[in-house]
């Protein structure tokens, strides 16, 4: 099927050589502000997607992704060219998501009756539950520690090495958390097996 293949191609992670991003960052540091826009264009969709799946809430995506790129914009001049730009970018993304998740969780405790409905998309949507939504909901039930490596591996296609650099933890830990994330996910999805097989 041609169209499917085409779609698959689009979903493949764009493999960019180190030099590509480095050259653009150098242009930016030399005063060419338009270079920043090239960086944004190149990486925004991946950043937005990580935010989307981590937060399980589409309405927060653009706000968080904007904050990520604003942080990048402010600190890009001090970029040290020691690691890949993307490792740094995704680390900022992951940390920003964690901040939001923690804030949301704490706020929920202190305002138990104030909100009429939940912040996640599912409470408002009338759309039929589909596999994608069910799996996203299941992922959002994982502890952040297990959720992040799993998303980076299975959805974004990172290698264990890249994940360990992004999350600043040992390769062994990454390996074990991905495995535990999958086991946990299996457990959460078990009761939904029938719907998933439809």
């Amino acid at each position, binding site marked *: 099927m041609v169209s499917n293949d085409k779609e698959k191609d689009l979903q493949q992670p764009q493999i960019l050589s180190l030099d590509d991003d480095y050259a653009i960052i150098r242009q930016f540091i030399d005063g060419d502000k338009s270079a920043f826009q090239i960086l944004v264009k190149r990486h925004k969709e991946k950043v937005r997607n990580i935010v989307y799946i981590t937060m399980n809430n589409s309405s927060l995506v653009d706000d968080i992704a904007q904050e990520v790129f604003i942080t990048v914009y402010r600190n890009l001049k001090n970029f040290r060219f020691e690691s890949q730009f993307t490792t740094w970018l995704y680390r900022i993304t992951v940390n920003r998501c964690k901040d939001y998740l923690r804030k949301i969780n704490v706020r929920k405790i202190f305002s138990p009756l104030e909100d009429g409905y939940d912040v996640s998309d599912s409470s408002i949507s009338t759309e039929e539950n589909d596999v994608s939504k069910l799996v996203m909901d299941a992922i959002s039930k994982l502890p952040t520690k297990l959720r992040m490596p799993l998303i980076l591996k299975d959805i974004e296609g990172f290698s264990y090495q890249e994940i360990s650099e992004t999350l600043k933890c040992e390769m062994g830990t990454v390996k074990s958390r991905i495995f535990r994330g999958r086991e946990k*996910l299996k457990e959460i999805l078990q009761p939904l097996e029938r719907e998933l097989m439809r």
Partner: protein
Amino acid sequence: MNKDLQTRELLSAYLDDELSQLEKSEVEKLLKTSLELRKQLEDLKKIKQLTQQIRRMPESPFFETRLMASIEGQKSETRRISRWLPVTALAVVTIGLMIVLKLNPDLVNDLWDEQKEAIAGFYKENLQPVLFAANLTNEDIFNFAFNNELPLDNTRKQYLLLGYDDSGKEFFEIRSANEELKRQSYNEYISAMNLNDEQKKTVDSIIGSYSKALEAQILVNDKNTIAINSNLWNYRKAIFADLLVVSEKMNKTKFDRIVPAGISNAEKMIVVNTIEKLKNSYNDQYIFVTPDSIFADTYEFNTQLFETQLKELEKNIEANEKKLKQYALSIRFDSTLQTVDKSSNINHSFRIAIDSNICRVDIPESHITEIRIADINNIDPLIEQATNNIHFYAYKVPKVERTESRIKIEYFDNDSIHSYELQFDEYDIDSMIESRPEFDFYSLDQLRQVKPFDDSMLAKYQFDKDYFDRYYSDEEFKEQMEELQIELERLSEEMKNWKIKVRKEVTKTPRR
């Protein structure tokens, strides 16, 4: 770690092609001999395939533009003028238009008025009282007075919700529910007040007497129009207050629990005056919600004419019954409008927020007809207290009082009031979170998920039983608990500095 676990972990890494050559061949050897392991690998594969099916976030073509705008916005305002250059051409056209309008200032207004009349006329056709069209019962009217919700059609899946925002301004929402809106408020109220059949009949007849008055307040038609009289908010208050006055007479002891101070004579006078004035006043200001616009306009609903028609209809009730049952509103909101900046005024008068299932309309003051009803706002505290207490006693919804220096949570159970109080002098959640970035607050997540009117909600306030299951092994659970303990100790140290005190207390309510 035990061997089995280690092997399973290796399987997961094998699936990701992240093993060394040696490990890989070891795993493959094991796979050849063990059916169990092959099954486990299949399971892991399935999970991986499922996660890979997650739909991606649709692209955002305006992302860079918005981002650059907010970066630019934070920078100084120099170089602004150069940005005006590309719009010079547009400005020329605008100036041209301004000259035309200067010569003929009424041109746009005339055009607009002409169109407006035509549009409004179309949507005003054949409006009927929702009470009749949706076949509403006394219970629905009670629910409206009590919960601010009124079903809008026979399917009972679309309903109207009235409310007041923080500044006291009126708003309404039209909501679509997944399920039929079923409230038992009337029955709950009867049992909370311990009313006998005779008394229930009296309450019934009072509600019945309002249904006629309410008739002209909300109208609907087959073009999916809903017309809401701007007096509706006052009506709701009046009906509720009147029911309270009646209840006090019927069962004083039970009523005292709901309004401990009783209803003062002054308040009773306000209620009587309000009802009198509302019933005798005539207000033709309606807010029209239609599939493509929301506007305020006058409309004269002829109750007498409607009743004559209704009598005609009743003669052939059987023939018409089929037709009546088919009536169902189908308000659908264009959820793409979600992206519209929620604070912007879409049509300059009403502030509208739209989600896939909710359309909320904030009403500017000028659109609520100010019938100077004898201080109706003075009975607000009475209504608020009664509503909260009925929720508290009849539905066991906890009370949460929050002031700058404390949070107090109370709930009612088996005639006892459980009360928790958290006091603090200075409190800032954001800085609290930022001061301990490593603390995972996830575990506290289950404390919430409270829906009003859900009896099981109290259980959800308690310790999450699934907490343990989230962790993979006993050791890890222990490790997490130790981390949590250290964290809590640190927190309590800090709380000492903040002068926070938590007090727990259980009091018995006096039995009467």
